[in-house]
């Protein structure tokens, strides 16, 4: 009897002993809902507010340029475009909710790339209205920042050719102003949709309501979008024009921003947005990010993630741009950048996803 009791005791004591000896990740009490709210308040909403402000600046600059076309006003408009696009690229890491879902589905209205230049030229050649109201019902290829970038830049003829084109066709300015005004409307719609005083998508995310089902799945969604952003940088922004999908044959037509020469900066800005969500920090404002969650699960990984972000920036900044030239003249640099982004993707999608128990799929069907 005693022997049997001892055996049974040993059997049940073993797990307890193991638990005590391996208890290094226990009991973190991490509040994922607070993390999501913080990411929304610290990163997502401020980014969209900056984007809305950038869109307004672009709208004002476009109006000034059309009122008085000159090299200076063109330069100011191009700068306003550059700045506004930077904010939108940062927002790629939070491109869900109003960005992808009906009824707003704002993504294709502001950033359908590569620019569909045929569509833009066709609308210019037509007599259809091009004010903001009319553009709201036009196709995605005829609106958004890619179309504005195409109108404002000419990598072959330079600014002189851009000015000449605007002077030769007054409709071009009307279209530009219509695009900028419609961009302001779209950017404002993002802010309203996310703002707790408006559509409160932020609250929906933080509390795991609606499409998110619960807080864990909402947190997984945020993480997966970070991954998706990094994957897009590697596969779409770098790999596709670099010919990675086409047997090494370069595909300059697949560059994200060939007219403005912003393709590399687009990639960097998208990574900055992903990093902001990871760190929970935008500019000088520090909140709670995915990093804080990771620190409760596998703290050693954080240094690797941050190093991988750093390596990716360094490799991208080392490319002798613009990317439309670099894919030919600096193939080694582009390859290095591609590999550095892949390393970042690897550590996040395999190691961090494992540590956070995030099943990287949007399909919630049964398991095992």
């Amino acid at each position: 009897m005693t022997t049997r009791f001892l055996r049974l005791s040993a059997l049940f004591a073993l797990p307890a002993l193991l638990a005590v000896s391996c208890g290094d990740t226990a009991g973190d009490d991490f509040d994922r809902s607070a993390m999501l709210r913080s990411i929304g308040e610290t990163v997502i909403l401020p980014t969209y507010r900056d984007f809305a402000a950038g869109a307004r600046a672009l709208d004002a600059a476009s109006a000034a340029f059309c009122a008085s076309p000159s090299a200076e006003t063109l330069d100011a408009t191009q700068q306003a475009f550059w700045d506004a696009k930077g904010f939108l690229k940062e927002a790629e890491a939070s491109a869900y909710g109003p960005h992808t879902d009906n009824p707003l589905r704002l993504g294709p209205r502001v950033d359908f790339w590569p620019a569909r230049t045929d569509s833009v030229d066709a609308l210019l050649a037509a007599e259809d209205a091009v004010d903001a109201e009319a553009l709201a019902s036009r196709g995605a290829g005829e609106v958004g920042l890619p179309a504005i970038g195409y109108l404002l830049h000419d990598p072959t003829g330079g600014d002189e050719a851009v000015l000449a084109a605007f002077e030769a066709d007054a409709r071009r300015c009307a279209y530009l102003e219509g695009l900028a005004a419609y961009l302001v409307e779209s950017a404002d719609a993002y802010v309203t949709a996310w703002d707790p005083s408006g559509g409160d998508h932020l609250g929906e995310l933080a509390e795991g309501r609606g499409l998110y089902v619960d807080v864990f799945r909402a947190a997984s969604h945020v993480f997966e979008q970070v991954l998706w952003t990094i994957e897009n940088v590697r596969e779409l922004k770098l790999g596709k024009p670099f010919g990675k999908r086409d047997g090494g044959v370069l595909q300059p037509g697949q560059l994200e921003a060939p007219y403005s020469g912003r393709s590399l900066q687009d990639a960097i800005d998208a990574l900055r947005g992903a990093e902001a969500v990871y760190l929970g920090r935008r500019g000088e404002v520090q909140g709670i990010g995915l990093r804080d969650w990771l620190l409760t699960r596998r703290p050693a990984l954080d240094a690797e993630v941050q190093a991988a972000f750093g390596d990716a920036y360094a490799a991208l900044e080392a490319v002798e741009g613009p990317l439309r030239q670099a894919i030919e003249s600096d193939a080694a640099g582009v390859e290095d950048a591609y590999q550095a982004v892949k390393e970042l993707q690897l550590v996040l999608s395999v190691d961090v996803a494992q540590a956070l128990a995030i099943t990287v799929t949007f399909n919630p069907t049964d398991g095992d």
Partner: protein
Amino acid sequence: MARAAAALALGRGEVDAASLVLFRIAFGALMTANVVRYEAMGWVDDLFVAPTLAFPYWGFEWVRPLPAPGIHALFALVAVAALGIALGAFYRLSCAVFFLAFTYIELIDRTTYLNHYYLVSVLAALLFFMPLHRVASVDAWRRRRRTGEAKPLFVLPRWPLSVLRLQIGLVYVFAGLAKVHGDWLLAAEPLATWLPRHTDLPLVGGLMDERWLAYAMSWAGMLFDLTIPFWLSWRRSRAVAYAAVLAFHAVTGFLFPIGIFPWLMSAAATVFFEPGWPRHFARLVGRPRTAPALPPTPGCPLRPLRPRQLFARVVLGVHFAVQLLLPLRQHLYPGERTWHEQGFRFAWNVMLVEKTAMVDFRVVDAAGGETVVHPREILTPLQRRMMTTQPDMILSFAHHLRDRWAAEGRGEVEVYVDAWCALNGRRRQRFIDPEVDLARVEASLAPRDWVLPLAPRDGR
């Protein structure tokens, strides 16, 4: 006396039909509900219509996906057949149709493999041979109307009960044996990874990232699976054991997305009860039904089996030999079975693996041109996740690329992968040998030397 006991053990004789009838009804009703659930959740489209590429099983490549109307019709057929089983209407036909249609659906794509759907197919096949429609069924009612026979005794042959007990027992015991594994017992993985997903739960959320809980649940789960058939079979422990079954499946069903599995197993565990157990509940609700007077158990000498009975015995013998050997085949392969997953399916390896992975495919043409193929362009998110973590699916995808290049007239190609995987809380490791041209590797049962061995677990 000894002969009679032997007859009982072999499943000869008859028993109160209550338990078996209830099992038939529960199985059919659950399967009907499951089809409704799949349609309501949009999973039929997600899993069987959306994919542009399927991963059929080795040897079953002839099983092809159906167009949308076809697959929806097949699901409807499954529901109708399941209802037929529950009601005992055209029972044999319903069983056959259910088994064939359900198994066809399961064979379309390895992505959708689930242990409990394999169990459903196995049970459907067994039900086909069991005469569970002889009583309390539409078929029995139709027969009486047609022939004017008197209402038959509420009894059924004993052997279906014995067969179901053995089948369900095997599932539990093999699921328990699979958990006698270093990751499960010594590292509490993958539960230590999964449970912290639930820290947002009210009341118990704070416990979910406590490591002791993962260990407690791992060990309890292993002991539960290994021993529960025996506790359920022993009259004195049965009530407590079944309470444990309900608690176990309620907890796992609540914490993990395992669909109908908890319901199916909670219903299936009742086969271990006395054959007339539902009568206790009938009495509790004030509708007592008297147990039928059982005909005498065949005495000695035992009558020789008729050819049909003999055939059924042989089929069942073969079935259980397969059921014993299939789960054991994984141990014939060298290396860590949760890593290479050879012989892993159809072996009751339930909830043993959490893998995250990333795989790039590199297609090299005859001119040396290299194309990197990202699976997300071709596969659904679920297919991508499953493919990147399972070597046989990685190989199938490589073959798909090889065949696609050939079909497009782009000549012979080599296919290499850059595959990384993390298993059960470990850091990532290279998964597949990047030097092996997978276009030249044929799918087979031979050990996969192109899957790199799993390195020992390091620190966290």
